[in-house]
């Protein structure tokens, strides 16, 4: 069994988004309950939470934007830039704690205290741009993590895999010119889903050309298409790039039960994806992998999805499922 870290703090529940908003504190509560009821919590190493230092957030976001975000919460303005981005007076502090916890996770992993980790954080991050909040996201957690690995730990090749059903526009834009951070995303085709970016011809710019890769999935598709595209696109790309660590933007809204998209990934489909990612981490990165929660809003399936997710990180093999048998045939 692996030494797997878990980042969670009840203060992550303090970011309240109001009625009719899907990104609610209950997401984390049910996820943690699912992990606990499966008897996995005692097997995980708790990561301490602390506020992130501003210098690391400023590696991604402009001071002006950070200030605007802090001020909007302080003045309880209700939203940041757009009604999607509902805030409350605690949102800024919650976002700071989430980032701080992720940076602590990195320190523990790089110090060898844990081998991989799951960060059950709110708010999510991958839509947040350098100077703007988008799609429920304020600080780009995964992007700040990658910058921290570059500047604090001198990691030279970082692979980011984003399987949230929406394209991580923020993460892509932050690293599109960076040849040392490979951003891969698989998501619903942008002509049918938010945010409308992440088309297959977007491959990075300037020195980063070739270090961005997008796989798009049409409405109504599911496991088979994900297996096909990940095998066709991601596996050979990472075999060339050979990341020294893998960061995962783990969104669970591509599930058939999640009405945020028209994609019908099954519970087993998510397990296949995560197992495939973990195999890559073993192959290239000595197993080093940090998974950070993004979207996923179907409260009834999140507990099982995250139980499986954590189980795979721990290296506890489920009995081989029908889906896995099929995938070996391909």
């Amino acid at each position, binding site marked *: 069994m692996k030494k797997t870290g878990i980042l969670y703090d009840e203060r992550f529940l303090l970011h309240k988004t109001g009625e*009719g*908003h*899907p990104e609610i504190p209950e997401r984390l509560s049910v996820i943690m309950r699912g992990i606990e009821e499966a008897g996995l919590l005692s097997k995980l190493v708790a990561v301490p939470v602390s506020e992130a230092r501003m210098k690391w957030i400023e590696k991604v976001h402009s001071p002006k934007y950070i200030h605007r975000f802090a001020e909007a919460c302080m003045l309880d303005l209700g939203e940041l830039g*757009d*009604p*999607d981005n509902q805030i409350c007076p605690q949102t800024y502090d919650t976002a700071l704690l989430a980032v701080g916890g992720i940076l602590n996770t990195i320190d523990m992993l790089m110090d060898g205290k844990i081998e991989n980790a799951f960060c059950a954080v709110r708010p999510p991050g991958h*839509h947040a741009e350098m100077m703007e909040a*988008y*799609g*429920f996201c304020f600080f780009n957690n995964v992007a700040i993590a990658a910058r921290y690995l570059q500047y604090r730990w001198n990691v030279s090749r970082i692979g980011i895999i984003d399987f949230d059903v*929406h394209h991580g*526009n923020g993460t892509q834009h932050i690293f599109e010119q960076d040849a040392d951070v490979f951003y891969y995303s698989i998501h619903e085709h942008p*002509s*049918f*889903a*938010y*945010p*409308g*970016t992440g088309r297959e011809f977007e491959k990075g710019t300037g020195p980063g050309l070739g270090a961005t890769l997008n796989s798009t999935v*049409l*409405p*109504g598709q599911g496991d088979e298409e994900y297996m096909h595209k990940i095998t066709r696109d991601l596996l050979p790309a990472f075999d060339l790039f050979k990341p020294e660590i893998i960061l995962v933007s783990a969104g669970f809204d591509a599930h058939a039960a999640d*009405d*945020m998209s*028209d994609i019908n990934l099954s519970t087993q489909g998510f397990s296949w994806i995560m197992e495939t990612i973990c195999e890559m981490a073993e192959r290239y990165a000595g197993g080093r992998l940090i998974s950070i929660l993004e979207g996923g*809003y179907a409260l009834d399936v999140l507990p099982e999805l995250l139980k499986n997710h954590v189980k795979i990180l721990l290296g506890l093999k489920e009995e081989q499922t029908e889906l896995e048998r099929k995938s070996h045939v391909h």
Partner: protein
Amino acid sequence: MFIDKSMTTDVISAGPEMSIAEAREIMAKNGIRHLPVVSEDKTLLGIVTDRDIRTAMPSAVLGQAGGAENRLADIKVKEIMTTRPVTVSPCQTLEDALLMMEMHKVGAFPVVDQVGKLQGIISIRDLLRAFVNVLGLRDPGALVGIVVEDKPGGMKKIVDAISELGVSFGSILVVRVWEEGKRAVFPYLLTTNIARVKKQLREKGFTLLDPMEWCLDEVAKT
């Protein structure tokens, strides 16, 4: 939306005596396919396209054999240009240009003033840029497809239902003919919370279109 707001004013042009070899080089260097030909006082004389030049070249094989390049240097732009090309005026509109491009099957029009002097060029690229902007594709958002009866007031109900949720519109596309008496409306909404919008629309009795059936072309079913 007048053409002078979207056209390229810094036009690269040729004189009538320029060799087609030089014209070809200018087009290749600047990545353009249309070269207006003007007199010294900027009066439009004609237009040369990359296709005109290719046609004028003896053949690709001869071009490699040498000698052909010399002949190419002898042929002047005025010998192969299209004289009296279709032009537009700066105070025509983008819709005019769009419809004219469809009608004449050309990719660009020289823009000339009342006395025939070249003011700019409007190409399909300028139109594309404008329409990418009109569609709101640079803003993060998502499209929803709704089918409605083709009668007044339908659009208002859709806009009201979505506005109630505090969601902003990036654009609204309307497909005029979806099926007999119906049209399809595609609001591009600046929100990731699309599930809530769909729920609201369904509750208000709208029929949502299966994304795999979406079509922006005329899809009259007879």
